[in-house]
């Protein structure tokens, strides 16, 4: 077999507790987004669009739906002759079993997997970020500057900077300092949690870190500072596009609603950097004689007899006659019954809004109404 130059390891085990009811049943990367997608589609599509066809996906929190969604990776063309998707949950060994304890620990526990492929470089990704990026450009850069580690960074405002891992760099973008969530940021270059490591360097660092009892086994807190101390070649790669960490209900709502703009940050219609997904079979959507649709995204299988305005309706959503859905995000299989009003709300998969029920409010500063999966709202 040909040697793989670069593989991706995708961290998808996080709970995403700040997404509240949306992640009660499913891992954050598997949360529905933009109608037909799930959040992880963006990272997986970036991989295949960057010719990276071997992806290890580290799962831990409620993995069932995520696992079944990813399957063998064929939805993203990741099932080719040389490619594969491997789902990598924590496992038992002769020394006992343990969960993934930190981002670096998750990769450390899968050294065998990476060794079996023996790539030159390893790309570390998060399954819960929204962006379109050609990782190949970053890899080219990593090779050109001869880095041991390249960190993808984005310029943020000084106010936001204390939420991120912040990099100080010299003129050649050589990283001189890395601080996780600094109170007084020295720079505005924030880490996007996307790393390219030269595998031999990462391998050694992971093994050393695993024996350090004080370590939190985290890339930002431990691995990167250690490599800096060892004076390894760490470089920043500045990403100029749109990037969003879907951390909270508000940011989830905003990122979704952005797609409704005439000129959204992420162009899902762009054929060059396509976003793939694992589509299920459903008929085309149907707008009936009493239906009205304005400024919205609609997926297959929807049946609309009510009014839908400025909303995103995922697969197989039903909006009955007299119902009104405004400024809302309805996840797959939601049923809005006759006369119900849904305003500025996020409704989880399979939930039912009963006839004449009123959910959410259009009042300014009103909190986004949130209904979890498979609930009935009366």
């Amino acid at each position, binding site marked *: 077999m040909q040697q793989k130059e670069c593989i991706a390891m995708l961290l998808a085990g996080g709970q995403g507790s700040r997404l509240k009811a949306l992640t009660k049943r499913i891992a954050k990367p598997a949360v529905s987004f*933009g*109608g*037909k997608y799930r959040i992880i589609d963006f990272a997986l599509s970036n991989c295949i669009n960057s010719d990276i066809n071997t992806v290890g996906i580290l799962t831990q929190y409620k993995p069932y739906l995520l696992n079944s969604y990813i399957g063998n990776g064929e*939805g993203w063309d990741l099932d080719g002759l040389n490619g594969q998707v491997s789902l990598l949950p924590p496992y038992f060994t002769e020394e006992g079993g343990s969960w993934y304890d930190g981002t670096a620990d998750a990769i450390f526990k899968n050294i065998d997997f990476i060794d079996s492929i023996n790539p030159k470089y390893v790309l570390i990704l998060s399954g819960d970020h929204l962006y379109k990026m050609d990782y190949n450009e970053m890899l080219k850069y990593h090779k050109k500057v001869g880095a041991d580690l390249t960190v993808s960074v984005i310029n943020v405002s000084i106010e936001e900077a204390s939420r991120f891992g912040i990099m100080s760099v010299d003129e050649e973008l050589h990283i001189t300092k890395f601080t996780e969530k600094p109170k007084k940021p020295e720079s505005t270059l924030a880490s996007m949690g996307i790393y390219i490591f030269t595998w031999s360097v990462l391998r050694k660092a992971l093994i050393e870190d695993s024996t350090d009892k004080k370590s939190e086994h985290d890339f930002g807190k431990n691995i990167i500072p250690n490599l800096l101390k060892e004076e390894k070649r760490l470089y920043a790669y500045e990403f100029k596009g749109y990037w969003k960490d879907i951390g909270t209900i508000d940011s989830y709502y905003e990122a979704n609603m952005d797609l*409704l703009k*005439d000129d959204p940050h992420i162009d*899902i*219609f762009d054929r060059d950097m*396509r*976003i*793939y*997904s694992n*589509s299920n*079979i*459903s*008929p*085309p*959507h*149907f*707008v*009936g*004689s009493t*239906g*009205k*649709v*304005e*400024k*919205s*995204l*609609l*997926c*297959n*299988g929807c*049946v609309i*007899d009510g009014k839908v305005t400025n909303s*995103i*309706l995922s697969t197989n959503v039903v909006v009955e006659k007299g119902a009104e859905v405004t400024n809302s995000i309805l996840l797959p299989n939601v049923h809005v019954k006759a006369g119900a009003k849904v305003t500025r709300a996020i409704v989880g998969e399979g939930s039912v809004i009963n006839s004449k029920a009123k959910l959410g409010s259009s009042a300014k500063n009103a909190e986004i109404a949130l209904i979890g999966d498979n609930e009935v709202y009366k």
Partner: protein
Amino acid sequence: MEKLAGLISANYNDARFGKLTAHRPIAAVPFGSRYRLIDFPLSNMVNSGMTSVGLITPHLYRSLMDHLGSGKEFGLSRKSGGLYILPGSTYGFDLGKGKFSIRDCKGNMQFFERTRFDRLVMSTCSKIYNIDYRDVEKYHLDKDVNVTFVYKKNMDGDVGDIVIDFDDRGRVKSIRRLKKKEKKVNLYLDSTLIDKNVIIRIIDWYKDNSYMDVIEAIAENLGRLSVAAYEFTGYARSINSVKDYMDVSRELLDSKVMKELFMGDRLIHTKIHDAPPVKYFESAKVKNALVGTGSIIKGTIENSVIFRNTCIEEGAKIKNSIIMQKCFIGAKAILENVICEKGVVIEDGEVHKGTSAKPIIISRD
């Protein structure tokens, strides 16, 4: 275990489809926003648990192969069984009548000999309905017959369709072509369930008259075979012409029809494009419409079927029309009773109006 396999004939044509079949077989005619006609018989077969399906190809089969690929989307890309592509004959085929020639079966005897099955469902691609062939098989076994036809009562047919007559005791008396102006008949739905040894015998009997249709061969031998007819009671339609195509497409806009055909337990499978959701802009107005994914809608749509990846610009008005895949409808264009073939570009302000009896077909060439 007893096995049911499927065999679909796509090797026939009909001039009444006009431009719609200029570059594609009837089986590959796009239908219902995201399907092609072959999706219906093929989905019926796989939804009835069949894992081996043969497809007799027509002469122009590029679009058909592009659509079906390895049969993956129908669960037919398998180690055991799967989708068998059976080349149909190209010369001397009587285009007027038959849809399922003995010759095409004869030329693909390996399918009958090598595929593991006990009974076979033979179907064409000209009828739209959603059926569970396991019910037909149960009926076939209960009646203890060799051949079971699927039919629907009180249906209007067209030239070329086949009618089943029963005697006083409800047994199949004759199978014949529909007479002109005949209405409300027991219309044969182009599906036959037949025992393996019987179909192999019939092919052998008629190998020298191989231009004949399998159904005609069975009809000639009603006395020698035990034959029954299974009544299908759901929604079923024939598509034999542009007019039928337009009428049945419009019927899909009846939500009862839509739900029965597409939203029950047995889904109609098709090639997945994985296009983005449909984006409606503020200026969009849509009423009574089916819309395929990947479309961008800024104009007005009424009583129409819109296929995938179309773009309808602001001020455009589309009424009683069918707009196929990848069409671009310019601003303020007006289309009424029109079928826009795949990839057609309608310039800003263009106006095309047909009538519901005679829709205009606009194609790229």
